[in-house]
């Protein structure tokens, strides 16, 4: 998973950042989730598109579609920096991000990178910050 110059120690240190799983979505696909999937497929022709509604782990009403995590695996990302890849995802979802989608965790990988680690990561737990400004991204 964690290849790189400082692999050994960084792996253990990374674990200490501690990103436990917040609750998964209810299992039903809402309209926002459907739109996210459709727009990413349209814009990036992903080989793999994994999408998880993580809203249930946050301070929002049941059934909300506010917090998502997505893994997009596309050859379009070849040669692009992480920043550029994320911007492509943001552009595809500009409408959703300007609307009710409050948080979007992105794993933007090339097919080769995905084969090395074909997993949708876990998001850190909500710490409640949205409570006083609920509804505004």
């Amino acid at each position: 998973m964690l290849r790189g110059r400082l692999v050994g120690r960084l792996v253990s240190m990374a674990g200490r950042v501690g990103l436990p799983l917040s609750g998964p979505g209810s299992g039903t696909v809402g309209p926002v989730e459907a739109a996210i999937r459709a727009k990413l497929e349209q814009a990036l022709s992903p080989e793999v598109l994994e999408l998880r509604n993580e809203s249930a782990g946050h301070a929002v009403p049941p059934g909300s579609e506010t917090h998502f995590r997505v893994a997009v695996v596309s050859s379009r990302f070849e040669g692009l920096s992480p920043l550029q890849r994320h911007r492509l995802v943001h552009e595809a979802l500009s409408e959703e991000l300007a609307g009710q989608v409050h948080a979007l965790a992105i794993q933007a990988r090339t097919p080769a990178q995905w084969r090395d680690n074909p997993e949708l990561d876990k998001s850190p737990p909500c710490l409640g910050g949205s409570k006083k400004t609920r509804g505004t991204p």
Partner: protein
Amino acid sequence: MSGSLGRAAAALLRWGHVAGSGVLRGPGVRAAGSGAGGRSAEQLDALVKKDKVVVFIKGTPEKPQCGFSNAVVQILRLHGVRDYAAYNVLDDPELRQGIKDYSNWPTIPQVYLNGEFVGGCDILLQMHHNGDLVEELKKLGIRSELLDTQQDQDSK
């Protein structure tokens, strides 16, 4: 606090070493004005370039209010980065929107190194994992404490 940055920051928290003593000083809130008035790109430009490491988060480094912001704080802590400017966007709706417009990035947290927008939590975590963060900090003259940790453990 003086100058335009005083107006710009609703709550600027800074972690830093007391010069000469090596003692870690607790974060001190630099309260600022009411935050009235919008923020120009020039003001935000000055804000992100004022310090080598600047983060815009929900909450404070002591008490992050969002898991993604907390991850950013913890990654910096792991690398021993203490002298950084952290702006709490929950205290300042105009800053919250302004910094998104400035960077053309729709979410918080946002991390700036040497005035350059680096990304949010996902990208910082990725840089942490693949070693890029150590390299980027080195360019800023900041030696990641993870290198020391690694040496200590390697020498055992």
